Each structure stands twice: as C-alpha cells, then as structure tokens.
C-alpha cells in the first residue's frame, strides 16, 4: 500500500501541519522520504465525512444510481462512509439484502457502505422486519428506518424502539403523519394556497416527533429523527434533549439553504420530502445545528432519472442530490456566517454521525494511529455547480447554476485515495 505525506494541511482549520498516511492509518510526527507528497497548503483537513442518510437505489433502481456511482459521488463530496437507506427494490428488510448492499460497497472501494435496515417488512408499516438478523449479519446493521414512510403506528414504533435495544440499534424516523399529508406536494403555507399545490403542514412532522420523543423516553431507547425541516421540530428536540432523553436529529443541506419560494417555478427539481420550508425555518435549523440541538448534517441524497423530474410537479418524484455539494452548502450556510468552526463541522458531519450509526472506523479525530479516513477541502475557491459534472447517475441537483464556496480536493479511505486533485481515482 502506498504511503502519502500530506503537507501543510490545516487540520480542522487550525495550524498547517503534515500528516503521514501509512498502512491505512495516520502517523504524526514522522516523515517518509519514499512517500507520495500531497501538497495541501491552504487546505482544510477533516476526518472523512459520514452520511447517515443516503439513497443508493441499488438493488432495483440502477437507472437512478448504483452503489458504485453513489459511493463515487460520496467520495467526491468528501465522504468515506455512507448509510444506504432501505427503500430499495427489494426492500432492505432481510439479512440477504443488507449483506448484498454492504458487499457491493466493499467491491467498489469508494466508501464504506453501512446498510440501513427497514423497520417493517416491505416498509409497509405492519410487521417488524427481522431486525436482529440484519444486526447479526455481515453488514452489522445498527440503524433502522422505513425512510420514505413514517412508522406511524404508535405500537409498532414503540416495539421497534424497544427491540433494537438488544443490539444497541437506533430507529431513524421519517416523521410524517400520513393522514395530514395525503397528496401533499409542498410546504403548507401562503404559497401552497396561491400555487394550488396540496400542503404538507409543519404539524404533520412535529406531531410525530413529539410522540416519538415521548415513546423513546418511555421505553428508554434511542431515537434518531431524520431530515428535521421545521422550526417547531427544532424546539421539540431541544426540549427532549433538555429532558435528558436519548434523541438525536439530522438536517439536510437543502433544508439549511433552500426555501419553499423555489416551488413557485413549478420546477420539480425543488420537490422533496419533507418539503422546502420557509426562511424562518431555515434560520431555526441553522441555529439548532449550531447549538447542537440538531446533531448532524445528513444529505438525504435522492437520485432520480431525468424523466421523473422532467414533467409536471405533481407527477414528479420527491428528492434531490446532495452528496457532492453537502460540504459546500454547510460552508455557505454555517461556516462562512460564523455559526460553525471547521472543528464543529468535523463533529456534525463525521464524529456525531459515526457515533449515532455505531461506526467504529470512521468519525475519529485525525490523530496518530487513527484510520486514515481524511478529506482535504479548499474553502477559498468558489464554483458554479454544473449538473452535468456530477458523477452520480442522476442529474437532479437543485444547485445547478448556483455558485457555492469550496471544493473537495482529496479524499482518503483507509489510507487509499478515492479522490485526488478534485478527480475520482
């Protein structure tokens, strides 16, 4: 295995230093004349990013994304580990499917892939899937989610929260009260009324979060709330944490940056679930991420083929790409305005998601002996996002034509570069 000497990198945005990568681990205070030198002058070094919420689409929708292309996109975004959501076809609700996804990730070699197991069989919300079998499989599943669907049945949610305690699992809830969101197309508010698009009210998210926090407290289990999108949800989670309950939460880059005003174009590239909310919500989400109420940023990277977005709004699929732009959006919304330091970014996008997902080899400080999962990032440049340049199979980025700060220059996974000079290896 090659040895790399990263020179002049600002670890977590601090003083310039050299990092030696040898045999897949970080070595500090040493040099190596034979090492391949990577000049990282001016670049910020962060621990490899960990995404707790990615849709890789394989098996079933290989026209939208595969484990290979999705992990390549992740590497381009600075990620070294991704959690692959369960809403594939077949659903990842058995040990067989999660092991297949896990193995595809290993074969690709661009990211460590941690499959998320479905909570219920077929995501149908009727019967618990074999959570224990998935936990015991080679994929060692610890995160369970029916993402895309809410585990809305209160008894089923209670049982899931209880059951995963046996293997230190966590239930990641897609909080969406189904009856309040039948046919919902966008955030319910003044704009949805004007545009004639069925509204997705904030209360449909908040009601489920409130219930789930109470359930998690009652049974003493771990709850993770996916893609928090409203100011009211932030407040509920703040209260739950203040009560000492074991609740964590994520926010997506797009909910930090984009607002529902974009729906006025009727361009379905802005159609996502939960929907883009108001400017007041994005502000509350940023504040919640800054003060730690919201633990992590997770992309909810959701690739869709062109024809599923090149149509009328109501007919279009929900979801947008996120892996390749996540760090830039976090810089734009959190770092540049002074809400987070680079050390905080390492926490929100690496340490904390690895902790929630119980991932041992990722989310570790860039210290002597740590696995060499590293991203080198240039925060000084600005770039205009081009959809066609994405390495994802899909093109449904909401940032096409938007200028964002920063660029991932290199990503190392277990000491091996997956991205160098901003290009896939």
């Amino acid at each position, binding site marked *: 295995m090659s040895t790399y000497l990263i020179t002049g990198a600002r670890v977590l945005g601090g003083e310039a230093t050299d990092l030696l990568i040898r045999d897949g681990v970080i070595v500090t205070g040493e040099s190596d004349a034979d090492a391949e030198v990577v000049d990282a002058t001016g670049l910020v070094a962060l621990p490899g990013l960990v995404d707790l919420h990615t849709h890789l689409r394989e098996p079933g929708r290989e026209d939208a994304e595969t484990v290979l292309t999705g992990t390549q996109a992740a590497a381009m975004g600075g990620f070294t580990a991704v959690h692959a959501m369960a809403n594939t076809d077949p659903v990842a609700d058995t040990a067989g499917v999660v092991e297949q996804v896990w193995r595809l990730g290993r074969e690709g070699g661009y990211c460590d892939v941690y499959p998320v197991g479905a909570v219920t069989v077929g995501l149908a919300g009727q019967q618990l899937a074999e959570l224990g079998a998935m936990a015991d499989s080679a994929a060692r599943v610890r995160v369970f989610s029916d993402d895309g669907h809410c585990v809305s049945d209160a008894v089923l949610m209670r049982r899931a929260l209880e059951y995963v305690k046996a293997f230190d699992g966590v239930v990641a809830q897609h909080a969406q009260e189904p009856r309040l969101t039948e046919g919902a*197309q966008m955030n*319910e*508010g*003044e*704009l*949805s*009324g*004007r*545009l*004639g*698009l*069925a*509204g997705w*009210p904030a209360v449909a998210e908040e009601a489920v979060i409130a219930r789930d926090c109470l359930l998690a407290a009652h049974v003493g289990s771990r709850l993770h709330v996916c893609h928090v999108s409203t100011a009211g949800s932030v407040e509920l989670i703040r209260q739950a944490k203040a009560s000492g309950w074991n609740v964590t939460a994520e926010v997506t880059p797009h909910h930090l940056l984009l607002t529902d005003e974009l729906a006025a*174009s*009727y*361009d379905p590239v802005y159609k996502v679930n939960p929907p883009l909310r108001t400017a007041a919500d994005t502000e509350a989400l940023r504040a919640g991420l800054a003060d730690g109420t919201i633990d992590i940023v997770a992309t909810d990277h959701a690739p869709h083929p062109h*024809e599923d977005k*090149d*149509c*009328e*709004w*109501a*007919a279009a699929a929900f979801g947008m790409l996120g892996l390749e732009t996540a760090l830039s959006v976090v810089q734009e919304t959190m770092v540049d305005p002074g809400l987070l330091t680079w050390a905080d970014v390492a926490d929100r996008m690496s340490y904390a998601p690895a902790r929630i997902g119980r991932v041992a080899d990722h989310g570790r400080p860039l210290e002597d002996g740590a696995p060499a999962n590293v991203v080198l990032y240039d925060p000084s440049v600005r770039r205009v996002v081009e959809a066609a340049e994405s390495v994802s199979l899909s093109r449904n980025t909401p940032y096409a034509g938007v200028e964002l700060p920063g660029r991932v220059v290199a990503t190392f996974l277990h000491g091996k570069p997956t991205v160098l000079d901003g290009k896939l290896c």
Partner: protein
Amino acid sequence: MNKHLLSAADLSRDDAELVLRTAEEMRSLADRPIKKLPALRGRTVVNLFFEDSTRTRISFEAAAKRLSADVINFSAKGSSLSKGESLKDTALTLEAMGCDAVVIRHGASGAPHRLANSGWVRASVVNAGDGTHEHPTQALLDAFTMWRHLGARNGGTLDGRRIAIVGDVLHSRVARSNALLLHTLGAEVTLVAPPTLFPVGVESWPVETSYDLDGVLPKADAVMMLRVQRERMSGGFFPTAREYSRRYGLDGRRMATLQDHTIVMHPGPMVRGMEITADVADSDRSVIVEQVTNGVAVRMAVLYLLLGGSEPAIATDGADA
C-alpha cells in the same frame, strides 16, 4: 400582454381592460349573420385537454374557429395521453407539427407553467384550468360579465363593486383567478366558505373572507356560487350536503335579501340543490347562460391578443372585416 396566459396575476389592469374591450368587440360579432373573422387565418390552435371538460374545450374551439384558426383537439381519452405518454413528449409532438397556441387543461397545478417555461414548445400557452391552481380565462369571462352588468352605472369600471364568491375556495381554480383579477380591476372581493374550505394563508390574498353568507349577501353587487364537487362531500370538509346547503347554498330566501341590481353567477357545471337551487339558477338575476356566451368572446379576445393582434380585431372604418 405577455406571450402566455398562465395566471390571472400575469395581467396588469391595462392588459385586463384591453381583453375586456376586445371581448366587447368580439361579442358584437355574435349578432352578425356571419360570425367569423379572418384574424387568425393560417394559425393553428391546439386544445390539449388532459381532463374532461366539454364546456371549456368547446368554448375555446368556437373562439378559435370564429377567428379562422385551424383547431386541433387533443384529449386524454383515446389518445397517447391515456397510454402514459408524458406531457413533455406530447408537447414535443405538437411542436414538431407546428402550432401557434396551446390551450391546456391539466389536473396538475402548474402544468401550463411547465409547458411554457421548459423549452418544449415555442407556442403561446393558455391555461384553461390547472389542478387547484388557476383558470384565468374563466376569471376574464366572469369579469367581462360583471363589467357588462355593473360597469355601466359605475363609470365603465368595476372599481369598488362588491363581489361575493361562495363555496369551495380551497379546491377552486376559479376562485383563485377571480380573486386576483377582480382585485386588479378594482373590485372588492369577499370569499365566503366554511373554515375547512379556505386555503391556509388566504389572509394574505387581496380579499375579505367570511364564514357568514347571510351577512355578506345584502352588500354584494354580484354573487358567484362555486361548485362543490361530490368527492368533497366524503372528504370530511363538512358534515353533510344538507348542512352545507343550509349554511352556504343560495336559495330563494337568501336571494330575496340581495339588492335589486345584484347578479347571480356560476362557472358551471352546477349542482342544483347543493350550492344553488333551481329557482335561483333560473331566475332573472341569473347570468349563468350569458357567462357561456361571454366565454367565447373573451377567449376570442385572448387568442387574438396573444397571437399578435396589435390592431383592432374589427375594422372600425366600416370596411368588411
């Protein structure tokens, strides 16, 4: 006028008044033995109807034909649309055949915006009703009808005239377009509905709102009743059809509280006995049938103005048109 008519909000007051004046010219044509103008000869208008709507389609068809345009009707039943062809491919097909205007009715809100703004077609796009969003030519024909009845004694405008729009505002594209257009034309609009049938955020619309029909009727100059679709009755928006009729239906007793000059309107199709009783619909105050006549005139005006008519549609020097 813009190239497209997608929303009543696209129309400035000058635009809207130009449409009304042009419609008045077009309407005079109905009294002539030959009801046809050569204005759009050689132009092609496509009626692209993804939803059943016989009356709106016929109205647009009559309007285009009276302007001598070639008309192609493309409806969902018995066509590629029912075979799963996308809006985009349908649009590309129409573009390849060459058409100058596309009149689109679609169940998805915003579908006309997609057609107009996605680069699929170069034609002018006219929104003939999209989902629960808008129906701007309906608003224009309603305004035209009000203007003919109420404008004469009001300096030729609708300034300050009080218009009550009653019923399922939440799902009504007619209510949305009328609220926007009538505000542009200076009228004072009051929307009347049970609280469950108002959209969230209606307080930001340029209208008054009320839950009390009896309180609004005596002050109204025009009352427009909206259809309540059958599927709403099972949707839990109100307890029963009977209770809805009792609280929000227009019957003879309520009609008696109207001012002498007040007109009663309905965009059709009516559910007699639900939102309006037969004696009201058939009364002297009812202009419901006239709305249909005016619909053709207004749509002629819209097609004429969108497709580049900058000169008067009907020559005023007495020459043959």
